[in-house]
């Protein structure tokens, strides 16, 4: 059997031969024993190959890892990698489905048994009587994908819509997994573990392009992911089981707040028109503000206790991001479904509607507020126009510039202001993030650095003597 013979048989198996070629092969099959044996083996091989689906190991890989990790705690994340949360959807659903039909549900999140009492609201079952899978809850981990503005999107700002429903537990039992772009910068910290987004969450780097967000303390914050062309904001809530005394504050149409209620038998909401309550899992309720007002959430538990939580729903105040502009350099802002645009100081910025976008052009250095009316809501953007400065102007205050050695821990900047530091002879320098700019004076002794928005980033400096400096930069208003 030559390679050519195998190629002929392979084509014959695929039915890719002409009728004449096929007849020739079939004639040879009746006379050439080796050829016939090879054909028979190919036939068996094809049959076996078609029957070869996912193996038991594939099924186990898909279904078992998530529940193990969820029950096992944070440390297993590092052992088992980022697979767990993605698999949570399938696995937790499977777990929920099977346990709900077999008896008292065991929460994969807390390990607590949650008896299914004969309550007026039988929370363990869906309206059609079947088991209530945990799909919507688990699937959130899959869907929190931060997408960036495309590389060809030019200066277009990505629409800043907070992904509702993003939450993490303060204990880190339900972290959020983010799929990020390699060039994306998370709030200037560039994947380093550490405080991000105030102090309520931290971002850890997982293998590949995965990042994991875990809670550090109770609160809410916005995690910003930025790259050249724009940025995205993800609203995060770090929540715990609320105390009976604490008022839950929600925002109309804001992110869903998840409260943990292990052992919940039934609940009642005073004013369903103010707050929409959805049972996400047997041990969690999702609350979303429907209209401004106050109401009370009451819950009855399996151990006979009864608790109340006052709820305050505030009107929506959509605060858009600060947008940095340069004089005479237009920038496009995507604004869909906007019926009216208002700018408080037209002398600072020119605003021109362009279909579903708005063309913003800085006219002079300064600050203006742009309000975009979108239905019943108004989104507000702060526009900061940076006045052009020549290199000489940048270094005009160089005489009193402090040396770089004075910033051993952190370099603090004021947004829009230029800070000049005496760097000494440098081989190279760079800054992390698109909102921070640095320029060196012609004599190479001074470094001017400016931030166009509040940020945390880093200044990297390589001195002529070969030493590397990595200086954290914090810009505030």
């Amino acid at each position: 059997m030559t390679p050519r013979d195998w190629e002929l048989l392979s084509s014959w198996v695929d039915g890719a031969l002409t009728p004449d070629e096929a007849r020739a092969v079939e004639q040879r099959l009746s006379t050439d024993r080796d050829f016939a044996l090879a054909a028979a083996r190919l036939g068996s091989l094809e049959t076996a190959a078609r029957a070869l689906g996912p193996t038991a190991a594939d099924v186990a890989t898909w279904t078992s890892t998530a529940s193990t990790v969820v029950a096992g705690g944070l440390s297993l994340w590092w052992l088992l990698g980022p697979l767990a949360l993605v698999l949570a959807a399938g696995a937790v659903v499977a777990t929920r489905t099977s346990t709900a039909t077999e008896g008292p549900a065991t929460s994969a999140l807390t390990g607590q048994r949650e008896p299914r009492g004969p309550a007026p609201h039988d929370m363990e079952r869906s309206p059609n009587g079947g088991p209530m899978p945990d799909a919507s809850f688990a699937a959130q981990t899959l869907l929190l994908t931060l997408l960036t503005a495309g590389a060809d999107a030019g200066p277009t700002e990505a629409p800043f819509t907070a992904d509702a429903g993003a939450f993490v537990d303060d204990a880190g039992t339900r972290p959020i997994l983010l799929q990020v772009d390699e060039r994306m910068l998370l709030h200037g910290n560039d994947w380093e573990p550490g405080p991000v987004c105030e102090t309520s969450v931290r971002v850890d780097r997982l293998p590949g392009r995965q990042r994991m967000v875990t809670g550090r303390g109770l609160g809410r914050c916005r995690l910003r992911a930025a790259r050249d062309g724009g940025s995205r904001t993800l609203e995060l809530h770090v929540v715990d089981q609320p105390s009976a005394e604490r008022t839950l504050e929600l925002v109309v149409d804001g992110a869903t707040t998840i409260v943990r209620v292990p052992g919940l038998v039934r609940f009642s909401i005073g004013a369903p028109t103010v707050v929409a309550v959805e049972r996400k899992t047997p041990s969690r309720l999702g609350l979303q503000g429907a209209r401004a007002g106050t109401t009370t959430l009451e819950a009855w538990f399996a151990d006979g206790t009864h608790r109340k939580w006052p709820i305050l729903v505030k009107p929506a105040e959509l605060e858009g991001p600060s947008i940095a502009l340069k004089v005479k350099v237009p920038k496009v802002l995507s604004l869909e479904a906007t019926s009216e645009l208002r700018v408080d100081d037209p002398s600072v910025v020119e605003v021109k509607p362009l279909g579903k976008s708005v063309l913003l052009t800085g006219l002079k250095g300064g600050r203006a507020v742009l309000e975009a009316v979108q239905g019943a809501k108004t989104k507000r953007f702060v526009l900061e126009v940076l006045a052009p400065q020549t290199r000489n102007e940048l270094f005009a205050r160089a005489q009193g510039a402090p040396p770089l050695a004075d910033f051993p821990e952190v370099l603090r900047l004021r947004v829009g202001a230029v800070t000049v530091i005496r760097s000494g002879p440098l081989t190279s320098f760079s800054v992390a993030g698109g909102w921070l700019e640095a320029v060196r004076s012609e004599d190479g002794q001074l470094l001017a650095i400016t931030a166009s928005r509040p940020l945390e980033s880093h200044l990297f400096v390589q001195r002529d003597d070969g030493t590397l400096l990595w200086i954290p930069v914090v810009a505030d208003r």
Partner: protein
Amino acid sequence: MDVELVRQAQTRDRRAQARLLRDVGPLLAALVRRLGIGGEGADQLQSVTLHLLAVLDRFDPAGPAKFTTWLTTVVTRFLLMERRKHRPETIPLDDRPLVASTPDPSEHAEGQSLEVLLERALTQLPAGQRRAFVLASMQGLELTAVAELEEVPVGTIKSRLARARMALAISLGPALDRPQSGGVP
């Protein structure tokens, strides 16, 4: 695959998406294991899953393609893109020996199912040949579709497939000669 479930998942119904992932998860895991880049299976499986959800809208439930066929194509294309980003070597894979220098499989064939032997033999194939065999023979993709995915002429795929079959037929020879009813439990 339940087409209605796919339709629901396309509406971003998270429950439907989760059920769909539960159904196709093992297939995704198998494809990643057989076609992916070695050593990054968990990462790839996650990336593939997220990618699948991102492009789910592009599947036409009323179209001629089966969902699993479409899924195979999408996953393969994604893995190939990933592979190109992380191309670890510059020598053509098909220049490797057709049959790996492993001990004679017939020595180990006794008592082992053909599936197990075939899975093991697949791992010994050069990557290009393995993908051609997995996609054409196992997943049932047309040769033209495989060629389009691999961005090579159909003739190249035919050649890779023939080499893969030859290597597998030789290495699995005795096992393939067994009666299928007894050899495949």
